[in-house]
């Protein structure tokens, strides 16, 4: 019980730090990648809360698909700015 609180405190604190950095970072791509790291930590939190179904779904969607959609949007607009 004590170990659970310690590890969940570490995971929660890291998540808060990553969220703050993602909101306040200057470059958009850094913000998107920090969001990807945040959702990987959320997977750890879901596994600790005994929710394996949700953890699998979040691992596939949060760190893979959503990040790639953000990156595609940034890529397609970057080239228009160059022209």
């Amino acid at each position: 019980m004590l170990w659970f609180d310690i590890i969940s405190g570490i995971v929660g604190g890291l998540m808060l730090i990553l969220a703050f950095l993602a909101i306040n970072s200057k470059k958009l791509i850094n913000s998107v990648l920090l969001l990807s790291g945040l959702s990987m930590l959320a997977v750890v939190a879901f596994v600790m809360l005994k929710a394996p179904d949700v953890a699998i779904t979040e691992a596939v969607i949060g760190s893979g698909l959503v990040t790639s959609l953000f990156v595609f949007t940034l890529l397609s607009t970057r080239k228009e700015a160059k022209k």
Partner: protein
Amino acid sequence: MIQYAAILLFVLGLYGIFISTNTIKMLVSLNILEIGLNIFIISIGFNYQGIAPILSSVSDTGLIYVDPLPQALVLTAIVIGVGTTALGLAFAKSIYQKYQSFDLNDMEESL
């Protein structure tokens, strides 16, 4: 402990939506808010002695499970989150094609 972190994550996402003027930043903040909310909903049904709600061949009566209902709700909420994020990004891209910028302040000037 993780429940408090989830609530603070939710509030931080709300702060990001209010404070940022960039559409991509707003969507990132919306995702942060969603993650915090999901963790909070799951933590409502948690029990220290509980195990994951999956019956195995050895398990019998007398075991404590965590609440499976919040997990079922969050499972669908995550998949809906992809849809809303994709729709928001599509709007952001079409806004960019009109104003050549993601920033809301630039749009005001060209109006």
